[in-house]
């Protein structure tokens, strides 16, 4: 703390009056060097969270008005009312649920393989120098490939069934998981590794109790990223020779110029993205309950 050496009390106020001095000394000091006292204010989150909803609602209202008055052609963009209507129609006959389930299944399978492959490779590369030499360099090269460019190759390799779709999701989702888990393992505090040596932990104990838990927060960021990417890839993959799934539904709608179903598909993708994000955040809260930020937030 820097201390300004200026004995203004002694100069201005006789000793017997000091006790009655005002709290703010700037009224006594000359302006040029006035010490400034600022009241401490802490901004609290306002209670007007609902304000965030105003602009989306307004946009939808404008969109509906634009469609109703004929400003927006339904060939360009179906009105919200029509999107809602086709949502009801598609859920009523169970078609939407069917497609959704298929898409969810593809993402789940792709993610499961990605976690298995990316996770294992990261553990091997993270824990051994030899593993790093063998695995890390090719992974760093492959991760820069645009995954969608693999579609033609995957069709030749895997045909047009389920396999290329799941494989695309797997490839795309593997890299974030690999990269973050690998970085997490390599970023473990060496001081904690030293504790393991002092306590004479076995290598298995070191990995289980120190390295993997330490890498977990970073790895969960990778998981979140992977899940986002897997939906992204699925949209593209399901538009190639699919006969089910949300992507197929949209592709079909395009052929019949059904902009209402197209918008519905987009909304479903958005909702799924939010859902998956919420899932990972729930997972983080459970698995990282020890973090001081969460300890505070839980209260």
């Amino acid at each position, binding site marked *: 703390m820097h*201390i300004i050496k200026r004995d203004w009390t002694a100069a201005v106020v006789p000793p017997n009056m000091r006790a009655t001095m005002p709290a703010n000394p700037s009224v006594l000091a000359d302006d040029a060097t006035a010490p400034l006292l600022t009241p401490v204010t802490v901004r609290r989150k306002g209670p007007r969270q609902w304000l965030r909803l105003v602009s989306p609602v307004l946009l939808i209202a404008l969109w509906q008005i634009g469609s109703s008055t004929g400003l927006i052609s339904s060939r360009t963009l179906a009105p919200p009312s029509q999107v809602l209507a086709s949502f009801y129609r598609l859920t009523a006959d169970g078609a939407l649920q069917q497609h959704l389930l298929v898409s969810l299944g593809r993402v789940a399978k792709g993610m499961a393989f990605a976690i298995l492959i990316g996770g294992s490779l990261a553990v091997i590369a993270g824990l051994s120098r030899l593993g790093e030499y063998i695995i890390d360099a090719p992974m760093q090269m492959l991760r820069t490939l645009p995954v969608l460019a693999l579609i033609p190759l995957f069709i030749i390799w895997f045909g047009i069934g389920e396999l290329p779709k799941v494989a695309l999701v797997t490839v795309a989702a593997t890299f974030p998981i690999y990269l973050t888990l690998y970085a997490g393992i390599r970023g473990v505090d060496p*001081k904690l590794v030293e504790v393991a040596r002092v306590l004479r932990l076995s290598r298995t104990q070191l990995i289980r109790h120190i390295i993997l838990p330490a890498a977990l927060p970073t790895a969960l960021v990778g998981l979140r990223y992977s899940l986002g990417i897997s939906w992204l890839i699925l949209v593209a993959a399901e538009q190639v020779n699919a006969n089910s799934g949300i992507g197929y539904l949209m592709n079909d709608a395009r052929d019949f110029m059904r902009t209402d179903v197209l918008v519905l598909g987009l909304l479903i993708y958005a909702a799924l993205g939010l859902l998956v994000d919420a899932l990972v955040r729930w997972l983080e809260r459970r698995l990282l309950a020890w973090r001081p930020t969460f300890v505070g937030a839980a209260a």
Partner: protein
Amino acid sequence: MNASTLPAPRSPAVRIRGLTRRFGETVALDNVDLSIASGEFVALLGRSGSGKSTLLRALAGLDAPTSGSVEVPEERMVVFQEPRLLPWKTAIENVTLGLTGPATAEQARAALAEVGLEHRLHAYPGTLSGGEAQRTALARALVRAPKLLLLDEPFAALDALTRMRMHRLIESLWIRHELAVLLITHDVDEAILLADRALVIDQGNLSTAIPIDLPRPRELGQEGFLGLRKRLLGAIGVTESETNGATPLRGVATLRDLDSPQPREVDATSARGAAAPA
């Protein structure tokens, strides 16, 4: 070397012969000999970079010497300056880490109770205060029943009041468990309060050994304290005037204070100055 000529009356807990450690051109430890008797409390003082931490790491088995021999008991534990608890494990899980056996949980509970933390068994380190975390680290060491306890400035990051409590705690644990203790510290007063023998290390050499035979329990400024303090500061190469006139009764003069001298521009007659932290 002075340190080695002092007799180690009981069976030794540490025997170091001709320990040398080089980091490239730098000689961190230069042909050090040292014996610590079992049950003896030794304080090791030195300025930053004097080699004291290197010596502790060699004893802990965390660093391999360039040459020389280091003999220590198999049962040795270290408490570092930072508690180094695993943040994802509760206090008791940290204490039992890596231990197996039926009575482990019970022993861990007893160790935590011994350091006064029986009410914090299931707290995460992120919710512990600095003193509580350091006491948990101490319990983690004690539960393993060490014969040699290595303390690497374990109180340096604690506030003055907590540090005084920790001094008393360490002393009582040392007496109860009959440990050999090597305490690395910056703090001359801490060394005099706790140790049977104070060693001074300078540029990789154990330059001085001063036996401290004050009766226990000791307190700052008791008879003989100031004399020892002067001798120790002299051995480290600090004159009394360099310590800014701090006496053990007023505050704790540590070598760290000397390493980073604080500007003293407090004007005693100024109301603002008097309110400022000294």
